[in-house]
């Protein structure tokens, strides 16, 4: 599984990256987590409000900061 954290580098985007890794630790799920900062890639997902989380090419949510528990639930 591949997870992408979309964000232009603001504080919330960094926090979402940390929360995503915590979510993996909680749930024991194995996944590759990458941070995507370049605008063309973010736009290709149709995301207008950052931060956003993408799982295998599908946008899970955008424009909010989810807790590690919420993310673990979605995975």
């Amino acid at each position, binding site marked *: 599984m591949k997870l992408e954290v979309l964000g*232009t580098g603001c504080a919330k985007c960094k926090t979402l990256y940390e929360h995503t890794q915590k979510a993996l630790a909680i749930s024991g799920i194995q996944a590759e987590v990458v941070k995507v900062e370049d605008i063309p890639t973010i*736009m290709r997902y149709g995301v207008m*409000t950052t931060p956003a989380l993408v799982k295998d090419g599908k946008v899970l949510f955008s*424009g909010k900061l989810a807790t590690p528990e919420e993310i673990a639930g979605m995975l």
Partner: protein
Amino acid sequence: MLQQFADYVIFTLLGLMPGSHLGAALDFFIYDTIKIFLLLMVIIFCVAVIRSWFSAERTRHILSHNREYVGNVLAALLGVVTPFCSCSAVPLFIGFVESGIPLGVTFSFLVSSPMVNEVALIMLWGLFGWKIALLYIGTGLVVAIVSGIVIGRLKMERYVQDYVWQMQVGEGEITELTFPEKLTYARDYTRDLLKKIWPYVVIGVGIGGFIHGYAPQDFLLRYAGPHNPFAVPLAVLIGVPLYSNAAGIIPIVHALMEKGLPIGTTLAFMMAVTALSLPEAVILSNVLKRRLLITFFSVVAVAIVLVGYLFNAVL
């Protein structure tokens, strides 16, 4: 009741003399801080609940069906309720223009969104009363609508960075939250926002209290009163680089107004602080060429100056 509490703390518990400079300043500080935090908590929560019905995707969908004029008015209104932070300005801008929303309509949104927001509304309502709060919101919307129409008329599409037009934009889904999720969202939003702005409120009210207690009554009347024709543009020029949010600046401005700053100058200054900022210019330079960026700032600044003159003249 709050006033009595503040009076009790300052004059009875601390034993300061009513009418002393220090007593007046501290009394003002305690009363204003408590009042503003109560208002902030309640109203930010309510606004956040309303906002959870709107998303950037939905706003884009509504605006993509409307052209000039109607589009500008809708964009300015939606700017108030669509949740948006300046770090999302670039993807939002690209998403808007790529889906066919006219440039001028996009700008109406970008102007109204930071300027007409719930924090400004609360601070103005709490410190100046509802009339001035409504006046600010009304004129803020007019500034956003007019600036957007003017920028649209200037036909500056070619001054948008070229890559923006070549961008491939995905569909983007509208995710609908359930009602309990909306409440959780509103709670978290209120907590995060309060965490971010509380130091500004305390410092702003502190400086305001100091001015209230110490600055001579006609201090500003002498320099920035109604007879000084340069006061309004000067206030706007000072306001642009001041990147404070409404939470920090409004208590200071409130105290300045007591010392004789006219209402139009006051409104113009607050609008310049919230609507135009240097960090915003840096972020927008990713999508706008210099010429359009300068035009954007100039058009909005001129509109704000006109608002200032208008209110100085009629009130």
